Structures are given as structure tokens and as C-alpha cells.
């Protein structure tokens, strides 16, 4: 029973995804644009209609599919918008199931954004993991399958922690399964279990290693979707349930720095961007931890901006991978002459993530740092500022420099293949780039959508002090980059991260299964053969012999004798009349002779 007419945007995407394989080829491209656009328009029509919709009675449960408020609307808006951009970027992909997986994945995110209780949340949470893993598997490299399974296993573990938390909470609160502020002042076991489920999806160390592992391996357009949805849905869930939880501040700061350190070491452009997701989501997690209205606004604004600029960066590096087949800095370089448009778009993404004035990051990231200073959390604010220097260092400088400039490491084949990508990929990048600049240059566009618009309206990022501070940090970071550029030359290496524990742990388990356990199993089998099987067989053979010769000897002996006589008699009775007469006459003659002689 639906309380009021309300169409869930996830439903549009799910139905659209299932109908996609039935759409004729000539209609496919318009259809691919129309469906996510309908979902986006659906979200637009909800603006200003805060309330609860889509309540369905299922057995004893009231399931709430539609909670519309400031927090859910800002996330739903940007996610459906990104779905349009990502689908346009992937229009050239002819395999329907890649689009189906991507749309179901977005539907999972939207389901979580709008849900009002933990049951619906869990349903869509799992849909996200199980749909997105196909975006890794569709890469179809030999290693893709293993990466996908690792991704799925980690997310399943997170999902189980979440489920355990819901159940404990349901018991402890006497039947409350609504999803809202969880009560961070008096945390109990269920609080931490739910928190683990959420921060695993937000890629908070030590639960982060799935992210670069999977996003570096995903398909070109699949990575554009993945970089936007899982972590930001988790940020939404944290903002909804855990605003003001102190532990999130140090965790967020650690994330911001951790991603920066690994980005220095990374040789694969898309893995570098993946590490920077961890770094950027760190700002949002810290913002949620600070928990003031300005900080929550900042976390939402940064998630909004991040979805666009990170999508743009993945589109830029993805287009290099799409055209050349390469994503490692040690196999690229000097491509500005061959792919100038991809360079410009990636640079806009780089300047946005680095928070350059007039670009989106400038108006969103600063809000979180300002909230940190406002609550006198100086060490957090300074460390986040330090991490932003690292962001420009890698995403704004290292990525563009080592792909489009620097030493040309391209093979002849790579160089020949390199060219700007097809029109649809450029269009996707163009829309994202436009929005990055729009957000940075015209603040009311984003600020009016935030959960606390009146607080946002009172925040002015464009003052002389903030401009001077940002420009000094960024430009002197650039100076440091060019002075130390030799140290940053790409090395064809990988960096060991915490996935080592489960990758090697898994291998250890296999070794354990193959060696000691199998050896013990063989020993037991051998022992059983000598001590059990051989005596058993000997005994069995004896009884078989006994049965044949002793028991059957008696029973069958009689039968055999009768059969033997019968056989002999049968030989005698050949069926031919002359023989019968001959035997009868002979017999009678013998009897007569015996009688006479006697």
C-alpha cells in the first residue's frame, strides 16, 4: 500500500535496466539517455515536498522507501545527475549488461539515500555490492575475476557486520528499526557494528584496500560509476546516523593523509585516483565527525563536488586507457599533442579536486576545514590542509604531467593509438567539467541545496584571506613539485597495502588446505588402508570363500550334481529319433544279455 503517489527514482532505473536488452538497436542510445534523465527529473519534482512516502506493509513490517528531506535530496540530485553523465560517457559500450549493472548499482545507492529503515537500507546496500561487482568482472582480464571476488567478499563481510548491528539494535531498543541518528553519545556494541558496516563502504582504513584494488581493475566506464556511488552513499549513511561521533574526526584525518602517501607511490593513474578518493572521503568523514551544521553542510557539499570532479578525473584517465590500452605512468607520457581535449578536461578535474579558486573543490572543501577551525580542532584542520597540498601535488600535477607531458614512455603502438576519445566520452567529460566550474564560480547553485541552507548562505569562501591562503598553499606546492620532480619519476612497481593480509591470508589458507591438511588426510587414508581396509578385505575374502565353498558348497553342491546329471542326460537326449531308438534298443539288449547270463 502506497500512502501517496510517489515514484521511486530507483524503480525507474531498475525497470529501465530490465527492459534495456529488449530495446531495438536503433533506439538504444536515446533510451540510454532518457532513462537516467527521467530518474533525475523525478528527483527534481520532489524538491520542496519533504516528508515520508512509499510506506509499504510487508508481513509485520512497515517498510519506508521514501524519506525526503534536505540531506537525502542533495545526494539523490547529484547521484541521478552523475548517472546521466556516466551513461553518456559509456554510450559506445554495446554490451547491454554493463549498462544494466551500472543502473542497478545506482538504483542501490538511491534506495539507501531514500530509505527510512534499516531493512530497506540493507536490501539496497547489498544490491549496490552485487551489481557493482559486475563492473569489475566485465573488464574480462585474467585477474578481473579474482579482484571481483575479493571485492564481493569484503563487502559481504561489511554487510554482515551491518546486519548483526541492526539485529542487536532491534532487540536492544525493543523493536526499533528506523534509520536515523543512532545516539552517538552512548555507543554500544550495535553502534560499532553498524559503524563498521558504514565505514567499510566509505573505505576508512583499515577497511579501505578493496577500493584501489577494484577501481583500478573496473571497466573504463564502470570505474566512472564506482568512484561516485559506494563511498558517497556511505558518507550519506554516516551523516544520517553518526553526525558528531568524535572518533570519525581522527579516522577522517588519517584517511586524508593515508590516501596521499599511497598516491605518491602509485604508478597506475586510476589506482592513484582511487587512493585520492580515500583521501577526499577523509574530509567528508571528518566533517561528519565534527558534526556541526557547517560541517555537515561541508561534508554534503564536498560529496556533491567530489562526485563530479572525481568522475571527471576517472573519465579523463579512462579515456587514455580506452584509447591506448595503458594506464601506467611508466608506459605513458608526452600525450598532449595526441589527446589535448582529454588533457584539458582532466586538468579541470585536477584543479577542482585541488580546490583552486573558481573550481568546485574551493567552495566545498574549505567549509569542512573552516568547521574544524570553528570548533577549535586545530590539529585536524591543519592536517586536512596539509593533505590538500598532497591532493594538488598528485591529482593536479602528477597525473597530468606524467601522462600528457614529462618523459615519453609510450611504445610506438601506444603512441599510434593515442587520440582524443569518441564524441560521447568527450560530451560526458564536458558536462562534468562545466558543472565543476559552475559550482566553484556560482556558489548559490550548490549552497541552496545543502541540508542547512541558511548556514550555507552565511558562509563566504571568496574572501581575500581565504584566496591568499589557498593560492599560496597550492602554488608553493607546485614549486616543490617541480623542484623534486626527479624523485617523483614513475617506477614500475606496486605498493603493498592492507589487502596483503587477506590476499596472502587466503593463500596461506590454501597452502594450509593443500599441504598440512591434505598430508594429514593422506596419512589417515594410508593408515586406514593398512589397518582398516586390508584386514577388512582379507576377512571379506575369507567369508566370501566360506560362503562359496562351505555354505553354497552344500546347497549348491546338490544343485550342481543334479545339474551335472541333467546335463549328461541332456547329452544323451540329442532329440534325434534314430539315436533314441539306438540307445533304447542298446539298453534293452544289455538288460536282456545280463538277464540271460544271469
Amino acid at each position, binding site marked *: 500500500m502506497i500512502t501517496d503517489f510517489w515514484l521511486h527514482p530507483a524503480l525507474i532505473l531498475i525497470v529501465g535496466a530490465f527492459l534495456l536488452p529488449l530495446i531495438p538497436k536503433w533506439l538504444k542510445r536515446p533510451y540510454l539517455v532518457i532513462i537516467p534523465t527521467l530518474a533525475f527529473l523525478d528527483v527534481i519534482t520532489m524538491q520542496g515536498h519533504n516528508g515520508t512516502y512509499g510506506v509499504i506493509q510487508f508481513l509485520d513490517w512497515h517498510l519506508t522507501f521514501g524519506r525526503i528531506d534536505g540531506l537525502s535530496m542533495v545526494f539523490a540530485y547529484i547521484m541521478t545527475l552523475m548517472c546521466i553523465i556516466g551513461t553518456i560517457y559509456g554510450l559506445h559500450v554495446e554490451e547491454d549488461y554493463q549498462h544494466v549493472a551500472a543502473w542497478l548499482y545506482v538504483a542501490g545507492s538511491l534506495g539507501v539515500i531514500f530509505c527510512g529503515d534499516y531493512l530497506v537500507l540493507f536490501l539496497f546496500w547489498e544490491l549496490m555490492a552485487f551489481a557493482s561487482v559486475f563492473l569489475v568482472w566485465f573488464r574480462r582480464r585474467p585477474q578481473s575475476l579474482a579482484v571481483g571476488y575479493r571485492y564481493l567478499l569484503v563487502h559481504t563481510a561489511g554487510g554482515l557486520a551491518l546486519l548483526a548491528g541492526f539485529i542487536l539494535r532491534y532487540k536492544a531498543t525493543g523493536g526499533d528499526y528506523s534509520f536515523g541518528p543512532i545516539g552517538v553519545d552512548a555507543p554500544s556494541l550495535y553502534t560499532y557494528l553498524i559503524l563498521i558496516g558504514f565505514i567499510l563502504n566509505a573505505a576508512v582504513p583499515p577497511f579501505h584496500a578493496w577500493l584501489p584494488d577494484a577501481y583500478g581493475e573496473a571497466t573504463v566506464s564502470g570505474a566512472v560509476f564506482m568512484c561516485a556511488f559506494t563511498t558517497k552513499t556511505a558518507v550519506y549513511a554516516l551523516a544520517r546516523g553518526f553526525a558528531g561521533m568524535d572518533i570519525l574526526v581522527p579516522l577522517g584525518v588519517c584517511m586524508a593523509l593515508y590516501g596521499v602517501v599511497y598516491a*605518491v607511490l602509485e604508478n597506475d593513474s586510476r589506482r592513484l585516483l582511487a587512493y585520492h578518493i580515500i583521501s577526499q572521503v577523509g574530509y567528508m568523514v571528518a566533517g561528519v565527525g565534527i558534526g556541526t551544521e557547517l560541517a555537515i553542510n561541508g561534508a554534503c557539499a564536498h560529496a556533491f563536488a567530489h562526485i563530479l570532479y572525481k568522475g571527471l578525473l576517472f573519465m579523463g584517465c579512462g579515456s587514455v586507457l580506452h584509447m591506448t590500452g595503458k594506464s601506467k605512468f611508466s608506459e605513458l607520457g608526452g600525450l598532449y599533442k595526441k589527446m589535448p*581535449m582529454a588533457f584539458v578536461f582532466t586538468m579541470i578535474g585536477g584543479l577542482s579536486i585541488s580546490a583552486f579558486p573558481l573550481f568546485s573543490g574551493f567552495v566545498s572543501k574549505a567549509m569542512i576545514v573552516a568547521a574544524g577551525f570553528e570548533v577549535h580542532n586545530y590539529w585536524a584542520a591543519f592536517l586536512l590542509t596539509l593533505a590538500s597540498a598532497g591532493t594538488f601535488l598528485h591529482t593536479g600535477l602528477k597525473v597530468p604531467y606524467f601522462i600528457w607531458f614529462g618523459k615519453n614512455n609510450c611504445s610506438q603502438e601506444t603512441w599510434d593509438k593515442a587520440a582524443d576519445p569518441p564524441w560521447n566520452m568527450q560530451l560526458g567529460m564536458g558536462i562534468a567539467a562545466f558543472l565543476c566550474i559552475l559550482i566553484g564560480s556560482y556558489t548559490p547553485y550548490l549552497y541552496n541545496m545543502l541540508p542547512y541552507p541558511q548556514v550555507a548562505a552565511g558562509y563566504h569562501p571568496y574572501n581575500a584571506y581565504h584566496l591568499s591562503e589557498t593560492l599560496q598553499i597550492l602554488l*608553493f606546492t607546485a*614549486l616543490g613539485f617541480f623542484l623534486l620532480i626527479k624523485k617523483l619519476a614513475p617506477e614500475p612497481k606496486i605498493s603493498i597495502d592492507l589487502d596483503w593480509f587477506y590476499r596472502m591470508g587466503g593463500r596461506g589458507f590454501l597452502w594450509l588446505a593443500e599441504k598440512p591438511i591434505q598430508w594429514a588426510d593422506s596419512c589417515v587414508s594410508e593408515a586406514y588402508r593398512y589397518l582398516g581396509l586390508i584386514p577388512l578385505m582379507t576377512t571379506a575374502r575369507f567369508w566370501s570363500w566360506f560362503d562359496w565353498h562351505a555354505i553354497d558348497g552344500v546347497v549348491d553342491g546338490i544343485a550342481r550334481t543334479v545339474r551335472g546329471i541333467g546335463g549328461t542326460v541332456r547329452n544323451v537326449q540329442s532329440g534325434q529319433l534314430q539315436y533314441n531308438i539306438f540307445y533304447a534298443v542298446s539298453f534293452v539288449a544289455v538288460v536282456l544279455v545280463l538277464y540271460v547270463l544271469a
Partner: protein
Amino acid sequence: MIVKLIDFFRDRLQLVIRLCYVGLALLVAWDVLFVSKEHAHTAAEHIPGFWAAFGFVACVLIIIVSKWYGHLGIMTREDYYDN
């Protein structure tokens, strides 16, 4: 057009580098002479060129610490996880 513009700057690389240094100096000068510090959060920020030094030191620190950490054995051969 974009390629021509980039080539134009690359042909005059030394000049561009010098202009960048001048730009950096002007930025610090603007900060010291004209920018009001009323929005500063801490006393340290009143030191002239504080954020310039912060940016430069942050960059150098990030590169050196990360590379040191990487060379502790974290960076390894690409086929490390292959069987």
C-alpha cells in the same frame, strides 16, 4: 589550438619559469602587504608568508616521507601477487 598554445609556452620555457617565480613573489607580497588577517584562526598565521611556507614544506614532507615509507619494502615488483 590547445596544442599550439602549449607549444607556444614550451618554446619559451625559461621565460615562463621566470614569470612563475615573479608570480610567486608577487603573491607573497600581496599577502603580506594587503591581505587582512582578521579571518586568521591561529596566531601562527600572522607570520608573513605562513601559508606559502606551509604549502612548500607540506609538499616536500609528503614526497620525502612517502618515498621513504615506500622504499621500506612497501613498493615491490609488479608480479608480487602472481603465483
